[in-house]
């Protein structure tokens, strides 16, 4: 196996459930004769173990959702390898039924992901029958059981409702139940709480954690919310401009961030413990969208970085270990350590 970047994984042995190597995606846009290439994702490698929660964090456009979409085979990678239990997922032209039952997705918008003309029950029956192999007679009991698993009790009465009768948090629970219907090993959760009220977020995160503990489900948790990543994830990968810039145990990365971008993200997170008005203090780095139009020949964060040095503009730093379980893509960190 050829890998260009060190793999982000936990030190313990055991075959990874999901293994992603050098995953890249280039979108080609044509405006008449002019063609631009958008390097949306560049050489991302990581593993997810059974029952593990790996968070991908970063701002919009960093490639975190693209990573999930490529793994779910909603888009085709330009380059790279995706393996599920060691088997090459991309070898098949389309996602097999077996693959779709093992890898499920939860989307950000619970108002868009449920079909308003169908009942809650219908949404769960289809994956139960097609992917779970449940017989017609067993359907009502299984549907009710799933709804009760996600906290919608009694399940039978929730199954008869239509999406418009549900709140955002309840809809997201239905979306989670639908993902569970296929008995997946891996759930790709793309910002599952960002459209919910703050008070409901913890409930959904707790539900995801409970499902992990009871069923051994692994998650790729995609979010821009560092607080929720710290709450839920075992490991975290910080992404910027399609590159992983920092990776390691969630607690360590978020309590002692190394990469300047991770520091910026943490500094920007609102914190009610800070004194009122402290928000007026300017951030160390500016906001701004990275250039994705050329394959990176410099550090993509250089233009915004408060610690930038000459080397940053000359060469893309490699993702290198700075301790036994931490990787950082930064010229400065490597020089220092």
């Amino acid at each position, binding site marked *: 196996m050829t890998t260009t970047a060190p793999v982000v994984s936990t030190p313990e042995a055991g075959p990874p459930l999901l293994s992603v190597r050098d995953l890249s995606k280039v979108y080609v846009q044509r405006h008449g004769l002019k063609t631009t290439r958008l390097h949306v994702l560049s050489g991302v490698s990581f593993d997810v173990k059974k029952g593990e929660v790996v968070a991908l964090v970063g*701002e*919009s456009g960093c490639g975190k959702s693209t990573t999930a979409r490529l793994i779910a085979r909603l888009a085709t990678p330009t380059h790279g390898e995706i393996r599920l239990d060691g088997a090459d997922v991309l070898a098949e032209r389309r996602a097999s039924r077996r693959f779709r039952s093992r890898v499920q997705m939860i989307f950000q918008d619970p108002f868009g992901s449920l079909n308003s003309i169908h009942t809650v029950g219908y949404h769960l029956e289809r994956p139960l029958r097609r992917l779970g192999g449940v017989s017609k007679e067993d359907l009502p009991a299984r549907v009710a059981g799933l709804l009760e698993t996600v906290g919608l009790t009694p399940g039978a009465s929730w199954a008869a409702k239509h999406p418009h009768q549900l709140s*955002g948090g309840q809809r997201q629970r239905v979306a989670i139940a639908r993902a569970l219907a296929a008995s997946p090993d891996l759930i790709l959760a793309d910002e599952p709480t960002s459209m919910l*009220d*703050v*008070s*409901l*977020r*913890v409930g959904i995160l707790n539900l995801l954690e409970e499902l992990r503990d009871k069923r051994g489900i692994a998650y790729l948790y995609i979010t*821009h*919310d*560092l*607080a*929720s*990543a*710290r*709450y839920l994830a075992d490991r975290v990968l910080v992404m910027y401009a399609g590159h992983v810039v920092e990776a390691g145990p969630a607690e360590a990365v*978020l309590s002692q961030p190394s990469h300047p971008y991770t520091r*910026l*993200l*943490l*500094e*920007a*997170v*609102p*914190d*009610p*413990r*800070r*004194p*009122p*008005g*402290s*928000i*007026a*203090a*300017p*951030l160390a*780095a*500016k*906001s701004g*969208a990275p250039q994705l139009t050329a394959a990176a020949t410099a550090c993509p964060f250089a233009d915004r970085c408060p610690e930038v040095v000459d080397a940053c503009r000359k060469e893309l730093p490699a993702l290198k270990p700075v301790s036994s379980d931490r990787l950082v893509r930064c010229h400065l960190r490597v020089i220092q350590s």
Partner: protein
Amino acid sequence: MTASDDLLVVENLRIEYLSARGGSCVVDDVSFRIKRGEIFGLAGESGSGKTTIGQGILRLLRPPAAITGGRVLLDGEDMLAMDEARLRAVRWRKVSWVPQSAMNALNPVLTVGEQLADVLEVHERLTRKAALAAAVGLLDLVNIDKRRLDAYPHELSGGMRQRVVIAMALALKPPLVLMDEPTTALDVVVQREILGQIARLQSTLGFSVLFITHDLSLMFELCNRVGVLKGGKLVEHGVTREVFTNPQHSYTQELLRSVLYA
């Protein structure tokens, strides 16, 4: 009697959705005051009535929603007793509004400069030339390069569009600005930048803000005083530090327990 510190006084405000079967009360007996030069935060979950209160203060509610009780005094003058002509004179000049999803509040077929200049032309009776010159100053206020004057909204990022709308709300230097979830759709870094800018503008220009949000962390970091809404009722309000360190109502305590820390 008007020589008080209170710029906005909301007293026993009641807003109902009226129907043939009777009213359903969405804002129930809400009272709070906003002092001159302070940022007052109003937090609550969706459906708690926070946006409705903002719209009620500005008299922007449409049937079947109606104000059925209470008083709203802006600088001592009763908003609820104003006729349409007086309301037109007061809105924007004395109190302005940054709407929810302000990113989409701009007119897509006019340039940013035209939209800013329109406000100044109509309300300040400036000539087109003077209005455009003043528009440059407004963009400068929110740190947007003057070359962006000729840009259309779709050419700007979400955060820039948001800042244009904030500049627009400040165009007539109103003493009170109502902001309804002004940064909800933005990335954390952009959100933080814009809120920092609001806080800095507020302290130099001295206007007051009613800041409506569902995000408690944000509210506590930005506001001098805060209120918590639940089901149309203001269950608690007070000085930010006190509410944060010693919440009295069980609902506030529950909300604070659900805050995650990065």
